[in-house]
């Protein structure tokens, strides 16, 4: 029998065959635009690792991120990710409460010192000593510092943890900040979105478990999912290129499905995978439902002027919504196909170091 401490043993116990496992990895690799050969390497590698200890801390948040990840195509393939990790602390999902819950957290920190992954959703209030949000009598600030200290990596899930989100919106009464503002000496992966797309969260976790931290952009977002803007991959893009815009929500243009740019769509300045992965098991995404993108995965989206104000008319204090992004968005109109291809080439290049050989021989 296989070593029960390894994921392979765990899979046997659950009756999950390697075939199912490979199928999971193939879907993940495809979603992340990795080379298909990476799926096999991922499956072989994942079987030989220990079940990864994960501590999930929820601070100033609405639990929407947890809602999103726990409903990732349930009860289907993607939810298998929960069998691949050991979720040692998550105060919304765990059965234990009170002292027992905090004890579980401390125990996991002790047993997996320097090896556990810390997932954070929600921002951290630091005004007035952090009194505006506490868990078990401990401020969010103290708890984050304590748990991050011995973590291998920190994953900031959702716009609040990644960028401060709604709690940080002007006038920011609690002094809310992001994880990266507090944790300065650990690798951080930001998975913004309000909430993030389920498969983006599971995909990034699968990547961390196997190949380590994926390639990130300047805002520490995984390039595989946040490399393109919504506008780059929008099916309404041809209308933008032809100058066909809806002018109000019930005019002829809106009914014909023209571009929503003039109705305040933030697609050109928003980096996320909604236009390709979509929502609710691939059903639709805001633009497909006739509403512009509100840019929920970008920093300070709540303070970026009105949701219905066109970005061409200026969006309040620009901040990260740089004018340069607009120009870049327009220049990228040459063809999303080309963009897609070059993106894939980059992702493939970055991953070519990992081959089946690297993972220890043939799959025979």
């Amino acid at each position, binding site marked *: 029998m296989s070593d029960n401490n390894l994921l392979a043993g765990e899979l046997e116990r659950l009756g999950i065959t390697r075939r199912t496992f490979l199928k999971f990895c193939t879907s993940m690799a495809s979603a992340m635009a990795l080379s298909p050969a990476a799926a096999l390497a991922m499956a072989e590698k994942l079987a030989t690792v220990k079940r990864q200890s994960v501590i999930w801390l929820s601070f100033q948040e609405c639990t929407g991120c947890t809602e999103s990840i726990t409903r990732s195509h349930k009860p*289907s393939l993607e939810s298998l990710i929960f069998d691949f990790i050991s979720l040692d602390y998550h105060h919304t999902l765990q059965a234990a409460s009170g002292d027992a819950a905090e004890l579980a957290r401390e125990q996991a920190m002790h047993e997996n010192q320097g090896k556990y992954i810390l997932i954070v959703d929600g921002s951290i209030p630091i005004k007035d000593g952090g009194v505006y949000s506490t868990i078990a009598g401990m401020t969010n600030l103290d708890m984050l510092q304590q748990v991050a200290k011995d973590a291998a990596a920190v994953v900031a899930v959702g716009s609040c943890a990644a960028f401060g989100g709604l709690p940080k919106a002007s006038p920011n009464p609690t002094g809310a900040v992001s994880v990266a503002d507090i944790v300065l000496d650990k690798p951080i992966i930001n998975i913004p979105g309000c909430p993030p797309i389920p498969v983006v969260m599971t995909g990034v976790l699968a990547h961390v478990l196997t190949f380590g931290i994926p390639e990130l952009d300047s805002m520490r977002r995984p390039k595989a999912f946040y490399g393109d803007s919504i506008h780059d991959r929008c099916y309404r893009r041809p209308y933008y290129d032809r100058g066909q815009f809806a002018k109000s929500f019930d005019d002829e243009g809106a009914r014909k499905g023209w571009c929503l740019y003039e109705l305040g769509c933030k697609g050109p300045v928003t980096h996320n995978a909604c236009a390709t992965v979509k929502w609710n098991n691939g059903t639709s995404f805001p633009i497909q439902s006739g509403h512009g993108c509100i840019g929920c995965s970008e920093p300070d989206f709540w303070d970026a002027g009105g949701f219905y104000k066109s970005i061409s008319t200026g969006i309040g204090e620009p901040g990260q919504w740089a004018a340069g992004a607009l120009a870049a968005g327009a220049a990228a109109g040459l063809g999303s196909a080309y963009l897609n291809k070059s993106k*894939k080439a980059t992702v493939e290049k970055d991953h070519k170091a990992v081959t089946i050989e690297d993972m220890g021989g043939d799959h025979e």
Partner: protein
Amino acid sequence: MKSINLPIEIAEPSTGMVQAVLSELMQHLQQLVESGLTHVIDLSSLPMSGSDRTQLETLLGNGEAQVILTTIGESRIIETAYSGIWWVRHYNLEQQLLAELIEIAQVPEIIKSHPADIRQALHRLKTTIELSDQTGEQV
């Protein structure tokens, strides 16, 4: 004169991707013949239109083998009319397509029984035989 209504369907344009995929397939099939090297193409990563997809499917056709796996949703694996070129589709329980690949190999990787699963099967079989020995029942 009586007017008639003709249903009009707007066809998705061909992008020319089919030719590119075909020549890629040819190169990899040649490699399989010469050196046994296998390859996988992820179709969802290619900017193909719906009509491209249909055209490619028609061109490759169906061969002799069709395999259905049932592992948390179906996987349908079809050998095309060109031996060694397999069309692989993975679905979830809701019958949504999760991944679509073309695999150039003698047998697609996922069809093979994995050594770990085989070891597990051997263990189970031994247990079954031992149990039946103990109870004296015939297997």
